[in-house]
């Protein structure tokens, strides 16, 4: 917090600095889940193409996988609002 205040002493606006850091933090938090969801959906599409009769099961499992992968991005989103 002191570090933040010192840095803000230069610009004079601590609120804007905090928001900027929070926005960047959310951007960083979105990288991992972005890659993860890409892998999940890509493999699900491949599975559906190889075995169309299993598409229903694959789709349900895919949404579950997405939901679990998304968790980190969602925590980043919450921190963005908290900051």
């Amino acid at each position, binding site marked *: 917090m002191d570090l933040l205040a010192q840095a803000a002493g230069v610009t004079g606006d601590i609120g804007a600095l905090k928001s900027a850091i929070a*926005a960047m933090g959310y951007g960083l938090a979105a990288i991992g889940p972005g890659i993860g969801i890409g892998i999940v959906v890509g493999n699900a599409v491949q599975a559906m193409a190889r075995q169309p009769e299993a598409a*229903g099961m694959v789709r*349900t499992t895919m*949404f*579950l996988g*997405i*939901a679990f992968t*998304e968790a980190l991005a969602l925590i980043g*989103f*919450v921190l963005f609002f908290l900051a």
Partner: protein
Amino acid sequence: MDQIVLAIECDPAQPAACAPANTNELFETPTLFNIGSFGVNRAMLLMVLAALVVIALLLVAYRRPRLVPTRFGAIVEGVVGYVRDEIAVGVIGPEGVRYFPYLLSLFLFILVGNLFGITPLINFPVTSRMAVPFVLTLVTWVIFVILGFVRNGFGYVRDIVWPSTVPVALRPLVGLIEFVSTFALRPLTLAVRLFANMVAGHMLISVLLVGGFIFIVEFDSKSVLGVLWFALGIPIFAFEIFVALLQAYIFTLLAAVYIQSSLHPAH
């Protein structure tokens, strides 16, 4: 808040260009009237309206069941059948029929609440108020935790913190991760997922449509940027219909998965 609402230079003389008033109600809703000391605001009224819409939907569709349903009845029956067969029975198994009424109310309430966000004249998704997803998640959490204890006794927690399928050396670590994930992260992500998607969608629509509109008005309808912005808002608007459906589906699906994991914790 305001930095992300509109990234244009802010003119204090015209505050409308700084922040569309439409997004503020996500976080502050003024009280409309009081019942005793109990303040009622717009979000609460819309919540009640959402519940009434769900009740009316099912009453109209199922009041007079017939062999060959009307077109409206067929649509509602399709939705109800999907929730029962694909979510309740499909995820939980044959026992799922017991939890089907809860899952159906969850699905329809969230769906109607989400669709309020793109309904003209309402334009406010009730599920974007954190209280709504939070309470829905709390109910789901209480159901699956109590179910776990009723079905498995104390073994429910033991299986989570001391999983027998994991090598002994890793059990404390995996147990800790599983414990936090089951009892803290599950409800948190379930609630925040719905909340975040609805807030983001509402903001996107507000920024694109309201912002585009303000640009067109402020610059005497010669604003190319405003027109482009407004045009971009229309496909986003259609995309929000898809998001509303998907989020209602995912919330219900995950609720079913959590209930299932309490019934059979070994899997």
